[in-house]
C-alpha cells in the first residue's frame, strides 16, 4: 500500500489536477491484485464499536473491503438489559441482527476469531478460515479477571454476572421472578475500571422497581468493591424517594474491598468481614479487555489496550486499532455511546489513511441514561476533544441536576428510549 502524507498528496493532486482521492484509488487497486477494493479492513467484534466502525467505513468509502467477524449469530446489547431484568422490556427487544450491514456490502462472518497474526496480518476464525487485512479493528468488549475466589464458569450459571447480555440476562431475570417474596438480591459491584460505571446502580434501581410491585418485602443489597460510584448523589436521592430501605449500598471501605469469595452451593457471598446468604446473587467480577486482544498482544500489564487517541491505533502493534471497552480511553467511560463514538473516529481515520490523507482531529461525545423507575431517568453527558499533545481533554461534562422535577425526569425516560433506538440503528443500520 502506498502511503501519502498530506504534503505529498497535495502535490500529487496539484500536479495531475485530479480531484481528491482519485489517484490513490488506482494506485491501491493495483496493489491488491487488480480488485476494485482500495484496501481490506477486518473488524473483530460485532458489538456496538465494531458494528459502528463497519457501517461508517462502508458509508464513507464503499470501495474499501470490510469484513466483520462476530462470534454470535446476533448481538444482545448490554444497554437496556437492566430493563429486561426489571421486566420492562423483552430480551428480543435488545437483540441486534446483521442483515442491514450485510445488505450494505459488508462481509459478516459469524465465527469466533481464535488467533490474530499481526506479522502476517491475518485473523483466523474457528472454522479454520484465514482473513487477511491491511487494517484491523478490534472491538471485543470485556472479559473477566479472576478476583473472586470460587467464581468459575460453573458458578456463572448459579450466580449470573449478566454483564454480557443474552442468556445471562434471562437467567438473572428468571431468578428474581422466582425468588421468595422476602428474597434478598445481592449485587457484587466491581472495582474500577469496568464497563458502564452507572450499570450496577441502575440495575439495583430496576430490580427494586420490580420488587416494589411484586415482592414488596424483598431487599436489594449492593456490596461494592469501591467507595464511590457514578451518579451517586442522584441514585441516592432516587432510592430514598422510591424505595426507602429496600435498596442498601455497602461501601468498599466497610468490607475492605467488597466480595472476595463465593460459595455457589451454599448461595453465600463473602467479604473479609461478612458472610451473606443470598436468594439471588448477581456477581460482577473485575474486568479486562476481551481475551482476543490479549492473545494478539494488544494489552498492557493492566489487561487493557493502550491506543493513540487520534486514530485508535494500538501503541503496541501497528495497523491494528482497538476501540470500545477494550481500549484505554483516558477520561472516557466504557459505554455503548462512547464505543459508537470511537467507531466513527476509527472509521474516519482509516478512510483518511486509505485515501492518502492525514487523519483529522476527532471529537467525542458520551451520554448514558439510567432509569431510576419506569417513569424517571437521570443522565450524564460529556464532550471531549484532543489537545495539541494528542491527550483527551474534557470540553464539558454534566449530570441531570439534583431535585429535578417529575416532568424533567419523565422526559429523560422518553429521550432514553430515543437514545436506544437511534444508537442501535446508527450502529447496525
Amino acid at each position, binding site marked *: 500500500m502506498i502511503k501519502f502524507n498530506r504534503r505529498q498528496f497535495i502535490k500529487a493532486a496539484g500536479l495531475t489536477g485530479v480531484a481528491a482521492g482519485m489517484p490513490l484509488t488506482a494506485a491501491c487497486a493495483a496493489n491488491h491484485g487488480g480488485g476494485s477494493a482500495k484496501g481490506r479492513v477486518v473488524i473483530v467484534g460485532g458489538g456496538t464499536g465494531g458494528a459502528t466502525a463497519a457501517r461508517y467505513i462502508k458509508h464513507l468509502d464503499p470501495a474499501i473491503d470490510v469484513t466483520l467477524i462476530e462470534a454470535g449469530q446476533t448481538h444482545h446489547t448490554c444497554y437496556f438489559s437492566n430493563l429486561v431484568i426489571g421486566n420492562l422490556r423483552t430480551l428480543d427487544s435488545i437483540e441486534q441482527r446483521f442483515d442491514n450491514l450485510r445488505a450494505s456490502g459488508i462481509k459478516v462472518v459469524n465465527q469466533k476469531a481464535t488467533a490474530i497474526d499481526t506479522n502476517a496480518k491475518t485473523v483466523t476464525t474457528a472454522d479454520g478460515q484465514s482473513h487477511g487485512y491491511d487494517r484491523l479493528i478490534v472491538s471485543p468488549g470485556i472479559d473477566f479477571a479472576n478476583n473472586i475466589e470460587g467464581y468459575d464458569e460453573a458458578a456463572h450459571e448459579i450466580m449470573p454476572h449478566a454483564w454480557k447480555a443474552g442468556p445471562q440476562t434471562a437467567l438473572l431475570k428468571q431468578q428474581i421472578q422466582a425468588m421468595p417474596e422476602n428474597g434478598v438480591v445481592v449485587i457484587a459491584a466491581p472495582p474500577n475500571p469496568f464497563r458502564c460505571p452507572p450499570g450496577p446502580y441502575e440495575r439495583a434501581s430496576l430490580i427494586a422497581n420490580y420488587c416494589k410491585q411484586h415482592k414488596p418485602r424483598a431487599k436489594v443489597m449492593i456490596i461494592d468493591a469501591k467507595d464511590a460510584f457514578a451518579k451517586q448523589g442522584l441514585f441516592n436521592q432516587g432510592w430514598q424517594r422510591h424505595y426507602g430501605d429496600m435498596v442498601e449500598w455497602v461501601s468498599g471501605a466497610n468490607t475492605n474491598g467488597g466480595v472476595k469469595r463465593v460459595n455457589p452451593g451454599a448461595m453465600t457471598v463473602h467479604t473479609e468481614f461478612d458472610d451473606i446468604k443470598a436468594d439471588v446473587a448477581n456477581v460482577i467480577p473485575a474486568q479486562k479487555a476481551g481475551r482476543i486482544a490479549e492473545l494478539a498482544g494488544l494489552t498492557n500489564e493492566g489487561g487493557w489496550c493502550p491506543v493513540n487517541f487520534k486514530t485508535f491505533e494500538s501503541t503496541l502493534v501497528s495497523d491494528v486499532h482497538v476501540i470500545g471497552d477494550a481500549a484505554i480511553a483516558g477520561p472516557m467511560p466504557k459505554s455503548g455511546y462512547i464505543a459508537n463514538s470511537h467507531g466513527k473516529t476509527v472509521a474516519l481515520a482509516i478512510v483518511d489513511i486509505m485515501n492518502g490523507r492525514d487523519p*483529522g*482531529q476527532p471529537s467525542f461525545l458520551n451520554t448514558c441514561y439510567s432509569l431510576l423507575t419506569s417513569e424517571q431517568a437521570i443522565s450524564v453527558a*460529556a464532550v471531549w476533544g484532543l489537545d495539541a499533545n494528542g491527550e483527551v481533554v474534557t470540553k464539558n*461534562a454534566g449530570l441531570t441536576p439534583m431535585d429535578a422535577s417529575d416532568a424533567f425526569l419523565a422526559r429523560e425516560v*422518553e*429521550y432514553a428510549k430515543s*437514545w436506544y433506538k*437511534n444508537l442501535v440503528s446508527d450502529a447496525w443500520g
Partner: protein
Amino acid sequence: MKQKLIQAALLSGLLATGSAFAGSPSPQALSFTCAGCHGFNGASVGPASPSLAGLPRDFFIDAMVAYQEGTRPATVMDRIAKGYTLEEIQAMADFFASQTYTPAQQSYDASLVSAGKSIMERRRSCGTCHEEGGTFGIEDLPQIAGQWSPYIRFSIQDFREFGRPMSDDKARPIEALSASDIEAVVAYLASKQDPALYQHDH
C-alpha cells in the same frame, strides 16, 4: 476559463483549510457524534428526540447558543452544547442543513387531523409562519410537520410552562391553544409523512 479558475481556487482552498485548521475536527467528525440520539445523518428514528437533518442553519445556531446560555429549557442539550465553540457549532449547522429532511413515520389520531388543520389555518395562528401545513417555515424557522409528536408536545410545553422565550407573534397563538387543540395540531403535523410534501421552491 473563469469557471475553471474558481474551481481550482475552491479545491486548493479546501485543502488549505484542512491544514490551516489542523486543530479543529471536521464537520463530519463533529456531527457524527450526535447520531446516537438524533439519528444517522440527523434523521431521528424517534420516538421523541428530534430530527436535525434539514434544520435551517441559523435556527440551528440560535438553538445551540441558547442551550449554552441556558435561555432555552433542556434536559440534556445544555450540557452537550457547552462542549463546542461557535465555529464548531457553525460547522455542524452547515452539515445538518445539507442533509435531507425525513418526516417521521409515526402513528397519529386520524380523527383529529381536520380539526388540527383548521386550528393551524385560523387567522394569526401557527400557520401564519409555519406555512403549507407546517411543511415550510418562513425566515429561519424549521418545518414542524413531520417532527416526532412527543417533541412537538414538549416544545409547546416549553413555551407555555418552562419559559422558552418567544416573540409576541408566537406567544398569542401558542397561548390560545387548549389541551385538545394541542392534540389536534400534533395529529395534523404527524399526518404529513410524504417526503414530497417538503420539496418547496421558495
